């Protein structure tokens, strides 16, 4: 919208071509989907304070399920969890220019906090709320 009407008209043929390219690439990607890697998902990862040998000063919890996000963000994005609208645009541009533009990233979309109770150097006790420590949901950005 920043360009004038004239400019848009003169460049009309180029976007049409690239959209066709993208559509073809997307079709090919969809056909190959069964061979692609697993989609963007939440995976289990437990941070164990006990295994770290910290139970002498961390009173609670023993550890926490932090989770992490892993997987491919490829067409059709709707089949994956929580893809943003812009992730579809990002995928299209990636198809057009795969060498320079990356695919959307599989990353946390919802994060939750935990509380940790521990002793400090002086045997005082600290209860602290930590934000954004646990992945609730993953998605393509």
């Amino acid at each position, binding site marked *: 919208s920043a360009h004038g009407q004239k400019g848009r008209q003169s460049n009309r043929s180029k976007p049409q071509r690239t959209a066709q390219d993208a559509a073809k690439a997307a079709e090919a990607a969809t056909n190959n989907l069964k061979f692609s890697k*697993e989609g963007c998902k939440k*995976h*289990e*990862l437990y*941070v164990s304070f006990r295994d*770290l040998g*910290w*139970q*002498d*000063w961390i*009173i*609670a*919890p*023993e*550890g926490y399920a932090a989770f992490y996000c*892993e997987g491919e963000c490829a067409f059709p994005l709707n089949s994956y969890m929580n893809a943003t609208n812009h992730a579809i645009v990002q995928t299209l541009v990636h198809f057009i220019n795969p060498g320079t533009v990356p695919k959307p990233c599989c990353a946390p979309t919802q994060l939750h906090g935990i*509380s*940790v*109770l*521990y*002793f*400090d*150097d*002086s*045997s*005082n*006790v*600290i*209860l*602290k*709320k*930590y934000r954004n*420590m646990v992945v609730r949901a993953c998605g393509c950005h």
Partner: protein
Amino acid sequence: NVSVDAEARSSFIQRRLRGQERRDIQREILSILGLPHRPRPLARTKRNAAPVFMLDLYNTVSAGAEPRGYSDYKAALERRAPAAVTPQDNRFLDDADTVMSFVNLIDQDQELLFQPLLQELRFDVSRIPEGEVVTAAEFRIYKDFIQEHAQNETFRVSVYQVLQEAPDSEVELLLLDQRDVWASEEGWLVFDLTATSTLWQLRPEQNLGLHLIVEDSRGQRRNPRLAGLVTGGEPKEKQTFLVVFFKANGVRFRSAR
């Protein structure tokens, strides 16, 4: 395919970390917790009143989920003095980002030998993290049931802030809070120390401690211990402590590593 899936996932975490990697990971997790290093190993007693009270707060925060403390802490919770956490604490907790308990630094048993009608207390609140604002502070002392007094006898328990301490003059005191209790009463007495804790946080040099004074119904000073107040180190689950609730002042950034 569940088994293939599990295999793929486990391949990520099955590699054992080398010694240096392990130390690096530990350092990163400490950094996430905002700690420069592991707290020094001390002979810590998790059965003391403060850790048990704080575990109670922790379980309130983590409500809904099964408490993840160790079994001995659960046992400690069952043994704890009743009604340690009040509904007011829960309100403070909702508003707080951090809660800290502080132990009394004065040897209470020694203190009462020399000044049997006065209980001196001192809490080092200079350890309050930077950028945190005090939203509430409570001084908590346990009162036991005492059989030696008539059940309808009452005591007035007063908490004073020490304003000035000079060897050649009288101690200048400021009354912070007071409570009338029955001789038969048993449980935690809670005194509001919010303003004083804020002052001590901003001006640590003005932290000259507290005086706890007990008077009977005739206005006569009494030994706090004889009125049933638990002033010594035992029993551990009834030890005096200060609990302070904080809220982060603005956005908090982790320091660069």
